[in-house]
C-alpha cells in the first residue's frame, strides 16, 4: 500500500531523514514513535506530498509520488493537531470548500452522512470558531476522510484533547480501521500506540531504528529506544 524507498531529506549539513525504508500493507494500523526532532513531521510531510524528499521515493497504491503528487494527495487523508478548518466558516462551509477542492461527487449527501457520523449534525451551520477542541478535531477527521482516501495519516491528533474527546475520536478511527483503511499514526503516547496499533515504527535521528511487526516489544523497551 505505502512503500518508502530510501527516503532522505537533507539541506547542506543538516540531515532530517537519513534513508528511511518501509512497506505498509493494506489495512495495517501503524504507529510512528520518536522524540521531537527525530524526523517524524518531516516523514509525514513527505508522505502527504507537502515536502519533496531530497532522495528516494514514496509509492502509494502503485503510484510513485515523484511522478504524480496530485494522485497521491487524492489517496491520502491527513488529520493533524492543526485542524485546517476556517474558524469564520461553518462546519458545512468548511467541508464544502474541501469537498470542492477534492472534487468529491455527490458532495451534499457525503457531507450529511459525515456530519451525522462525527455527531456534529446539529452544529452544521455554526461557525467552527465556537466549537470545542474535541468537536473541531472530529470535524477535522470528517475533513480528512471526505474524499474516501485509502490511507489516513494521523499526526498527533490527540494533542490538547480531554479523555472523553480522545475516546470519541478513537472510536471513530476504529470504525475506519475495521472498514479496512490503512492508518499511520504519530504520537508521543507509547501506551496508546501499543494498545491500538498492530505495528510500531521507532524513528530516531532520521533513521528507522525499529520496525516491530509482531507486537512483541514492551513499553519499557520502546521507552529505552526512544530515550537513549
Amino acid at each position, binding site marked *: 500500500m505505502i512503500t518508502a524507498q530510501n527516503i532522505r531529506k537533507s539541506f547542506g549539513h543538516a540531515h532530517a531523514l537519513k534513508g528511511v525504508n518501509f512497506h505498509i500493507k493494506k489495512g495495517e494500523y501503524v504507529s510512528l514513535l520518536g522524540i521531537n526532532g527525530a524526523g517524524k513531521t518531516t516523514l509525514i*510531510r513527505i508522505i*502527504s*506530498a*507537502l*515536502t*519533496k524528499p531530497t532522495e528516494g521515493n514514496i509509492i502509494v497504491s502503485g503510484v510513485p509520488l515523484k511522478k504524480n503528487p*496530485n*494522485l497521491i*494527495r*487524492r489517496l*491520502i487523508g*491527513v488529520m*493533524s493537531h*492543526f*485542524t*485546517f*478548518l*476556517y*474558524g*469564520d*466558516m461553518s462546519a458545512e*462551509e468548511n467541508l464544502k*470548500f*474541501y469537498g*470542492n*477542492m*477534492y*472534487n468529491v461527487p455527490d458532495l451534499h449527501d457525503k457531507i450529511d452522512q459525515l456530519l451525522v457520523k462525527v455527531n456534529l449534525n446539529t452544529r452544521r451551520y455554526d461557525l467552527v470558531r465556537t466549537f470545542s477542541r474535541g468537536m473541531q478535531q472530529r470535524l477535522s477527521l470528517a*475533513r480528512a476522510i471526505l474524499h474516501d482516501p485509502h490511507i489516513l495519516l494521523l499526526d498527533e491528533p490527540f494533542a490538547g484533547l480531554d479523555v472523553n474527546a480522545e475516546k470519541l475520536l478513537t472510536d471513530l478511527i476504529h470504525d475506519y480501521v475495521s472498514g479496512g483503511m490503512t492508518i499511520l499514526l504519530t504520537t508521543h503516547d507509547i501506551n496508546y500506540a501499543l494498545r491500538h496499533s498492530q505495528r510500531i515504527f521507532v524513528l530516531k535521528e532520521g533513521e528507522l531504528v525499529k520496525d516491530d511487526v509482531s507486537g512483541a516489544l514492551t513499553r519499557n523497551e520502546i521507552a529505552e529506544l526512544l530515550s537513549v
Partner: protein
Amino acid sequence: MIALKQILAILRKDILLELRSKDIIVSMCVFAFIVVIVFNFTFDPTTQQIKISAPGILWVALLFSGNIGLSRSFAREQENSMMQGVLLCPVDRSLIYIAKVIGNVIFMTIVQLIILPVMVILLDLSIGHVLPQLLVVLFLGTLGFAGIGTLFSTISANTKSREVMLPILLFPVSVPVILSATKSTAYLLSGKDIGQSLSWIKLLVGFDVIFLVICFLLYEYVIEE
C-alpha cells in the same frame, strides 16, 4: 474543469471570509483615506499643484493600502497553518496563485471604487471624459501590483517580520508597474496627451504579462514547505 472548480472554491472561500470579517477591505480603505488626507495637508490643496500631483496621490494611496491588504490576506492563512490544509488537496500550486491574485485584485478594486469618488470630490478633479480609460488603467496597475504582491506576500508571511518585509520586497520590484500606471493616469487626467497615455498603457500591459507569467511559474517554489 476541476482546475476551474478549485480556483472558484478558493476564491469563494476567501470572499466569504472577507465578508465575515471585513478586515482587509476596511483596513485598506481607512489607510487609503489617511494617505489622501495627509497629502492634502502636506501640499496646499487650494493651488493648482495638487491637481498635478493627483495621479501620484491616487496611486500612492492605492499601492500603500494594497500592500496592507496583501499582507493581511496571507497572514490569515498563516494562523493555524491553514495553508497546509489547502496544500494537502490535489491542486496544482499555480492554481492557488491564480485564485489568490484574482481575490486580491477584487479586494483592491473595491477599495479603488470607494476611494476614487472621494478623491474626485476632495481634489476637484474632472474625470468624466476619461472614466472608461481610467478604470482600465486602474485595473491594469492593480493586476500587475497584485500579481507580484501575491507571490511576495507568500514569501513575507513566512519570514520573521512580515509587515516590514513585504513592502521592502514589493516596491522596488514593482517600479515599472508603478511608473507606467502613474504616467498613464497622469496623461489621462491632464486631458491633453491622451495619445501619450495609450503608449504607457501598452507598456503597462507588457509589464503585467511579464510579471504574471514569471510569478505564476515560480509560485510552487515559495508555497511548498
